[in-house]
């Protein structure tokens, strides 16, 4: 388990959650975030490799060439779809490809495919950010996290989850529909017990989970949703596990 322990953000610095899959490709970026931008970086297990910079915003990082490759589109579409289901705002950092030392940098060949992917993303409200390398990407992440913090959406709770029961509660909150990791963290911090969340009115779920009203309503309804015994019998033999 790759939980890197660091405590909650001291005042003035921002907190960024990073998926553990970002580590191998992002050593330089993570180092820069910690050292140059004094950000509190907490590594955790998210559902795919992205960054969480506030209670409502996720940032995906893609190299220019990955964004331009047709074979990646389906996977990228799935990831963007899932992020848009979990977060109110989604940014994508498009990073220039790294050139090996000694290798002449080839100019990026902009294709129709790249343009149409870009147009489609912008159309759906995904905000592109442009970076020339890991160092600059770290700066953009820190900037966007600071901006979100100023707007009152910064991650303001301890990001470490201590103790087995709290870990289990966090996992349960994560299995609520459309709940992202930082909202689950907020819930496990703000509700005294799981039962308190389950019996809370919509307003309290919205406040405790730091989420939008529609999402709080969705959770409220989900917790009271009565399972159809016929469907429950079906799923017994089905492939839902």
């Amino acid at each position, binding site marked *: 388990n790759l939980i890197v322990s660091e405590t909650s953000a001291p005042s003035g610095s921002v907190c960024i959650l990073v998926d553990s899959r970002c580590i191998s490709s992002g050593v330089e970026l993570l180092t820069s975030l910690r050292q140059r931008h004094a950000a509190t970086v907490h590594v955790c297990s998210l559902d795919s490799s992205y960054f969480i910079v506030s209670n409502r915003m996720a940032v995906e990082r893609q190299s220019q060439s990955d964004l331009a490759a047709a074979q990646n589109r389906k996977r990228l579409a799935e990831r963007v779809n899932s992020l848009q289901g979990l977060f109110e705002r989604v940014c994508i950092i498009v990073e220039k490809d790294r050139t090996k030392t000694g290798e002449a940098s080839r100019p990026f060949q902009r294709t129709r495919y790249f343009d149409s992917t870009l147009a489609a993303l912008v159309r759906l409200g995904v905000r592109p950010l442009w970076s020339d390398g890991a160092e600059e990407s770290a700066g953009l992440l820190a900037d966007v996290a600071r901006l979100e913090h100023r707007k009152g959406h910064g991650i303001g709770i301890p990001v470490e989850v201590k103790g087995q029961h709290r870990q289990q509660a966090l996992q349960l909150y994560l299995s609520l529909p459309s709940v992202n990791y930082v909202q689950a963290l907020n819930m496990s911090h703000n509700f005294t017990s799981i039962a308190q969340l389950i019996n809370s009115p919509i307003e309290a779920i919205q406040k405790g989970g730091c989420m939008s009203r529609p999402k709080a309503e969705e959770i409220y309804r989900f917790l009271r949703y009565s399972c159809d015994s016929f469907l429950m019998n079906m799923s017994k033999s089905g492939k839902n*596990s």
Partner: protein
Amino acid sequence: MENKAPELLNAVPPYGHMICSDKWRNSSFIQGLKGGGVKIIFETELGVADFLLPNKSSVLYVSECDIIAGSSYKRKVVRYRNAGSSFQELVLVEKTRLSEQYFPAVQKFVVFDLGLSLLPISGQADASQLIAQMVHGEGRENPFRRKSSSRLLDPLVLALVQQIPGVGKVKALVLLRHFSSIQQLCNASPGELEPIVGQAGAQQIHSFFHKHTAGT
């Protein structure tokens, strides 16, 4: 003429067309677009925006010259944003060998200070290719559009119940047959749970829901 402008600001060009500010009439950008099969309607009263696209986007073009000339581009972008168009607002920025060094500052201003979307292009040829994709893309299905799937909630409820320690799929199904919702299950007393999962199981489930979690 004065009151004509706001109307035009919100005119949606027909599919395959774009509305273009008159000042672009003889540019290589327009040549490129014609080559890309986009039909162009020129308009002198477009106000601050440079182009309007059929997908209800309005586009502002910031050239290399604008950027190198100093901070005057800022006024242009601010005016564009303050025009308050109902369209999606996009800013194309020429990122060239000359303007490259200013690009981070331009991005900070356009995206972080003003909250607009920025797309870099290397010049007018790039821009016409991108705009052509946007104009034609409107007729195609967006590959990133979320399929609004009516998700079945039962499997999600079942999965959540299995997060309770000691409860696997079989026990979860049995529990949900007796207490059909998560809330009912949570509020069941150990006495009510006991006939289904035994005394130890009943205690475990009840305390899982009610045990203190918050605080540090």
